[in-house]
């Protein structure tokens, strides 16, 4: 396996819309293994999208299983992911391997329904919420050439309460 170089802003490749994956072959699976290793080598990284390493294909990996006490699906390989339903809104803090030394608040849907293929081309459906849903939305944005910087909201003021308490 190879550690891939993570591109950082203002690399223009981060702003490109990625192409759908059509060939589910060994080359794809080797790339995914490298992409996953790259994600795991980054401290605190719970997700990565192919365009972050300069491959403009609709491939995302998310694994939030290191976070205790949250609902999650473990290691997810999401190819050609499509978020089909959104519900609720929540403000949360995000950072990005492609934007070092900066974090900011972003509003995301609290719950999403997602359709995606795996590395063998099989279709899967997921219902996600909270932190995992946030990670998937952040990574899917990368596939459309969007960074969390494009969605920043005020650091200081809540536009609405963070969560029901």
């Amino acid at each position, binding site marked *: 396996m190879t550690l891939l170089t993570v591109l950082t802003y203002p690399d223009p490749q981060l702003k490109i819309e990625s192409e759908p994956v059509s060939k589910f072959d060994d080359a794809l699976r080797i790339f995914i293994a490298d992409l996953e290793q790259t994600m795991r080598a*980054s401290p*605190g*990284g*719970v*997700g*990565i*999208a192919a365009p972050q390493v300069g491959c403009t294909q609709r491939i995302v990996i*998310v694994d939030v299983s290191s*976070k205790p006490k949250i609902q999650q699906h473990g290691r997810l390989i999401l190819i050609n992911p499509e978020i089909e339903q959104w519900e609720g809104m929540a403000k*949360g*803090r*995000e*950072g*990005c*391997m492609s934007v*070092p*030394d*900066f*974090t900011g608040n972003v509003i995301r849907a609290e719950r999403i329904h997602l359709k995606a293929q795996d590395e063998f081309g099989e279709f899967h459906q997921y219902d996600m919420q909270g*932190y995992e849903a*946030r*990670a998937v939305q*952040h*990574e899917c944005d990368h596939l459309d050439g969007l960074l969390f910087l494009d969605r920043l909201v005020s*650091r*200081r003021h809540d536009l609405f309460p*963070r*969560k029901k*308490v």
Partner: protein
Amino acid sequence: MKWYMLTLVGKDRPGIVAHVTSALFEGGCNLGETSMLRLGGNFTIMMMVSFNGNKHALQDMITGVAESLGLQVHIDAIDAKLHQHIEPDVSITVYGADRAGIVAKVTGALSEVGFHILDLESDVGGTEAQPIYVMYIDGKANEGIEAVEATLDLIRQEGIEVHLTPIDTMVG
């Protein structure tokens, strides 16, 4: 390049930031992190300014624009670097009937459990007869969130409402 902390205080009016930053830019300064606040019609901004000259030269550069805007200027040479953010991991909101000492009580308790306050803001709502005191704090729980919860429990027993929300920054 040397770093200076430039602090301006005065009555708020439109265009202050634009005028001040233009003067700094034209004088060859670069801005680092800045924070502006407006409180009760008053304006204050703290700016990390990098500048290849001494404090006097910076003072001369800013005096004209500051005087024209009615601002007081304070400049300190500082030992600072960019790219050294401390990430908050806890957000705390506090509210209660307005009374003296609420800030001191809460921040004192937090300080005892090694809580590093990174951002604090307080406000007064309600009515003159029955004010409501609200405070927001973001910070880093250096000795863990459980220690912070435990100390906040003691505060709650005194009739102050305190909510703690972990900030779990998602990096992807």
